[in-house]
């Protein structure tokens, strides 16, 4: 869509309506609300948007989003346990796990899950860099798979656990208890804390040739 020729109000409404969950009517209401009540807020939002757009980038190691130098504060924090990496699908899930206060290791953010229906395979996720990280970082002893308890999240965990099997690194999966089909970001802290604590070690000594029905 080209917003070039529109008047500024129409242009802003049209841009806002591209956001998920915001229809044209809501976008228009937001614009008029801002105009009526608080123009200072608009300037602040504009400034914040520019900052985020210009400064936020993926951490080269764990791929979380950060505005800090190059590495994120998780990767730089020397008090965190460096022998365990928790793999999450996105930064919201990372925040949910961080909020439990239970986890003190490092993270790896995949930026999605496998999703053949959307054309997302391993190459579209930050999986190659996870392997590179595990190869290079000799001190990593455990990988906790905390992808969401959805069909695609489970398949991603299984894919990773089988691909990681030959490395000899301990691979564990957060325990169920998180509602099936739900997402971590909306799971309460207590449940997530228990799911982390009761994580189960996955073993795939010899990966079965096909759908073997041998979920641990």
């Amino acid at each position, binding site marked *: 869509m080209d917003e070039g020729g529109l008047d500024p109000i129409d242009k802003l409404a049209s841009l806002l309506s591209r956001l998920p969950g915001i229809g044209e009517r809501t976008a228009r209401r937001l614009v008029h609300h801002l105009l009526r009540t608080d123009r200072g807020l608009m300037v602040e939002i504009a400034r914040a948007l520019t900052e985020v757009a210009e400064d936020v980038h993926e951490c080269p190691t764990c791929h979380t989003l950060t505005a800090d130098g190059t590495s994120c504060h998780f990767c730089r924090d020397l008090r965190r346990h460096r022998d365990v990496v928790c793999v999450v699908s996105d930064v919201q899930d990372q925040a949910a796990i961080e909020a439990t206060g239970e986890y003190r290791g490092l993270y790896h953010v995949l930026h999605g899950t*496998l*999703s*053949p*229906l959307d054309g997302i*395979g*391993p190459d579209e996720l930050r999986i190659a860099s996870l392997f590179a990280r595990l190869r290079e970082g000799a001190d990593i002893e455990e990988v906790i798979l905390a992808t969401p308890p*959805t*069909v*695609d999240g*489970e*398949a*991603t965990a*299984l*894919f990773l656990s*089988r*691909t990681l099997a030959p490395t000899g690194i301990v691979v564990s999966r957060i325990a169920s208890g998180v509602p*099936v*089909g739900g997402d971590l970001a909306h799971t309460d802290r207590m449940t997530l804390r228990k799911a982390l604590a009761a994580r189960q070690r996955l073993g795939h000594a010899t*990966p*079965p*040739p*096909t*759908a*073997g*029905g*041998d*979920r641990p």
Partner: protein
Amino acid sequence: MSTTLSALRAVHFRNLDHVELEADPGLNVFLGNNGQGKTNLLEAVHLCAALTPLRPAERVKELIRFGQDEAHLSAEFALELPTVVDVRIHDKGKRATIAGKPVRDVSSIAQRIAVVAFTPQDLDVVRAGPKARRRALDRFCYGLDPTFVHRARAYERALAARNRLLKEHVVDEAQLDAYGPVLIEAAAAVYESRVRALRALSPAFTEAAAGITEGGLAGTLRYRMHGLDAAPAPAAYAGELARSLQRARGKERARRTTPVGPHVDDIEIQMGEHAARRLASQGETRALVLAWKIAEVVCLTEARKAAPILLLDDVAGELDPARQRALFDVAEEVAAQVFVTTTHEQTLPAGRAGRTFVLDGGAVAAQGTL
């Protein structure tokens, strides 16, 4: 106690311009010639009560009155508290609220309201392929336990993902291996719900079939796992399916689609020793479908401690007065609210009390009592 709809408003819905009605807690009859809107009104009741279309494979846009942007349905249900269900349909989809709150999870409506619908297409349950029976059983599973929808969707997603991978030019074995166990686990969950539902439905079906034919029809329901033609114990299903998938590997690669699983299983309707699909006469077909519906009403009432709302579309065209009476008797017994469409009041079994609404050109032209 039963679930009832107390008031309904339909605006710009299909051919209905603006209809408002107060429903009888018992029987409601939508009268009118074909094309005047009586089935559309029944569909409006179904959409509010179930948030899904009455007729399968419906495109949302067809639900909006020609020339309008939006259809708006609103129904008040007498639950523990009077509860308003509001549905707005745009060309891109629909938005529903229950008691003013947006519906995030479709099963939240089925937690409160159960619906059993009977339309002429339901005869397919006996005479058509397995798909119609799976759909009928899955609807019943959903009525018994609304969370079934999550299991069904998880399975559909795993199946679709796996089939997509099988269609790739070069099949990614590692990804396929990852989706296999997920598919099997989801399949086993669907299967377990289906078997549990069938265990409740089957005896009620047998009883109803005998009841409406005065003992003339020995009807039974039996689950048949594809390729096994039997129903393994739920705990054994995952293993059976895994073996079945392994055996069908060659076929799977050739056809590029998952050949076994709950999406191809069947529920066999038997008359005595024989499969009804091949042998049932017109009359027997109707009796068996009727028995299935009656069994649903009985089981849902028992499981939910509240009768479902019964929607009957043109049953007079399919059921003779004696069989209609059997259906109405069951409804009365469990105190179910009934909505029925018909062209003539005389086609209904005599001696029922209720309200009539005459539909003409997309509007309620007259109201009366039976």
